[in-house]
């Protein structure tokens, strides 16, 4: 049994703003096992982005407030880590791909400088020039899934905290960095990396920028990669290109990935396990195939049903009545019950079982859970 790269336990995050308290994330538990892709889907404002940014502690902390729970990364809880130590986790521990390719690259620096900077940070940490985040009691097992064809840049040297002196400090020239950056650009299938290197982000198209963002995140060789809607802002054909690239990289890189998206189609194509979020809660979690075949939460079911594949003659399209509740005034009981067609009186009183996802094992039925009183009935409905 391998230790999960990331396990979130009962995490609750509030935003305390002038007008009140917004429960952005409530009691979410989930596990990212090594080498697996965990997808999270949900509508706007369901807390998925908050969750993504909460893991590397990117949320600005006065309005955001970690009310309870743990974010255990490689065996260590990140919430009590002081701010000054967070850079040790970021980059080499957790990498992140952002949604807006327009904004996620610094407009004032060339592509080369931005990627080289990330590589530099990794080298310094590997060589012990900068402190390394203590990886925790059990080192992560990188041989979980054999590489189909080992790629040189990705053979990540494991640097335990006490082996600093073992690595020789090496002086790197600009051309060394150039070589390394080029390798990463080739990794993300950029055709003409030598030219791209010296360009500024605004001279590149959205798809190209997102590839560079991916290269940048990978160049830190993170153990966990968080992809926050990496393709949502792109055009359809470009999205397909980046999506297939992501999937190829998933196979090559072997990093564990947390993949956030609002698009069911996208997660269906990428994720191994899937979590569905609604109004700050994780309402269903399980292997992606099972969720698509037999959803156990009414919300997931109606979400799947409202994927529009109809013509005008099939009017009307099925919808979920009502609107997503305001996160500062959540309904009592199950948060979905005011919109649920299967709601019974108990749903307005009792929120239903909270998911206790410790480890989702592929194929085992116990790993598919839903936070609904009538999960079994929902699954058996047509």
């Amino acid at each position, binding site marked *: 049994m391998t230790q999960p790269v990331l396990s979130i336990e009962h995490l609750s995050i509030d935003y305390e703003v002038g007008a009140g308290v917004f429960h952005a994330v409530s009691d979410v538990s989930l596990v990212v096992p090594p080498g697996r892709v965990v997808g999270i889907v949900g509508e706007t404002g369901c807390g998925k982005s908050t969750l993504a940014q909460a893991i*590397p502690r990117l949320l600005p902390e006065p309005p955001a407030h970690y009310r309870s729970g743990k974010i255990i990364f490689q065996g260590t809880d990140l919430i009590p880590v002081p701010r000054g130590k967070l850079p040790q986790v970021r980059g080499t521990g957790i990498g992140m791909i952002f949604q807006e390719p327009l904004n996620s*690259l*610094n407009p004032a620096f060339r592509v080369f400088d931005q990627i080289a900077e990330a590589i530099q940070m*990794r080298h310094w940490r590997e060589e012990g020039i900068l402190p390394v985040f203590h990886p925790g009691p059990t080192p992560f097992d990188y041989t979980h899934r054999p590489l189909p064809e080992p790629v040189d840049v990705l053979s990540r040297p494991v640097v335990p905290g006490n082996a600093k002196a073992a690595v020789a400090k090496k002086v790197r020239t600009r051309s060394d960095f150039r070589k390394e950056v080029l390798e990463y650009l080739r990794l993300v299938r950029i055709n003409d990396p030598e030219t791209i290197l010296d360009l500024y982000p605004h001279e590149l198209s959205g798809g190209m920028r997102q590839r560079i*963002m991916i290269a*940048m995140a990978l160049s*830190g060789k993170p153990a966990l990669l968080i992809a926050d809607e990496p393709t949502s802002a792109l055009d359809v054909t470009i999205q397909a290109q980046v999506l297939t690239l992501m999937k190829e990289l998933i196979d090559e890189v072997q990093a564990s990935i947390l993949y956030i998206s609002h698009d069911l189609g996208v997660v269906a194509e990428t994720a191994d396990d899937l979590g569905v979020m609604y109004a700050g809660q994780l309402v269903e979690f399980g292997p992606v195939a099972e969720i698509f075949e037999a959803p156990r939460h009414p919300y997931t079911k109606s979400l799947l049903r409202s994927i529009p594949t109809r013509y005008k003659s099939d009017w009307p399209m099925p919808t979920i009545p009502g609107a997503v509740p305001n996160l500062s005034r959540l309904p009592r009981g199950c948060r979905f019950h005011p919109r649920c067609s299967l709601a019974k009186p108990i749903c307005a009183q009792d929120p239903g079982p909270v998911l206790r996802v410790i480890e989702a094992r592929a194929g085992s039925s116990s790993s598919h859970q839903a936070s609904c009183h009538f999960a079994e009935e929902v699954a058996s409905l047509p």
Partner: protein
Amino acid sequence: MGRSLEDLIIFILKRFLQLLPVLLGVIVLTFLVTHVAAIDPCPRWYQKASLAVINHCKAQFALPLWTQFWNYFTQLLSGNWGTSPLGVPVYPVISAAFPATLELVLTSMFLMIFIGIPLGVIAAQFAGRWGDHLVRVLYLSGWSIPTYVGAIIAAVFLAPFLGLPTSGEYSAPPPFPQVTHMSVVDAIIALNFPYTIDALSHLILPAGVLAFIEMGNATRMTRSAMLEVLPLEYVKSARMKGLSNFVVLYKHALRNALITATTVLGVTAGGLLAGTVVIEEVFGWPGIGAYAFAVLGGGGRPDFDGAIAVVVVFAIGVVVANLIADILYGVLDPRVEWR
């Protein structure tokens, strides 16, 4: 993409071309103010001069407007900027005074950049908290103190306390030739160490006061530009590389914030130049500001030709500062195409 060296040259040339109509406008406006709007100016301008001079002046004003403008315009362009009522030619005086003012302004700009901008970053970093409030009170105070009050406080109360001199460029006339008319530079050229220190000690107080008073713009601009930049995703993605907070703030965020902040340079230059009028007078600095105070101020020695020259020189100074800001913006922001 339009950012080669030739493009840069074209870019700068173009900015120069765009300058010309503004310069012409400056000259015309100065003419309007000094010739057309003036109500019986001769006795006032030439208070202490002889009757012959006043009559000559009156005759000049009696000429048709076009002739007046032509005379004025050709005089300006030819470098013959007239003489003061006491018979001193204006041009040499101004050309000697200009470097001194430049030295003062550049020094205070230097102080402003190296103190004001980091203060702006600090304010943005602690936005809404005490660090921010402190910085804001500081720059708003500078903003709210009239220059002369600042200068007087510094000269009368602060200077004795710090043991700094409050008048002139040097304590004693320098034994070396004043090549550039910039006190510190001249001393350095002459390799005269004690005089360098002496010149610096004379320079620091006026430059410091000027910088403190005009710092508001730079700090505020930096602060609001930083506030705009900090929530952007590229700052988060820089954090996600594992960079320290300092690098994220001063390399990634400030680099972009500065692009916006350069636009303030032009405005600041105007403020600094205007500030020299009072500062140089109070600190006895032999620059254009003091000259302007003398020829324009109510209690000084009125000097018609000198007044025109001073106003035009100040305006050109601001225009050139704006030009530099504009070019700097183009150079700093890679998104600007040099075309």
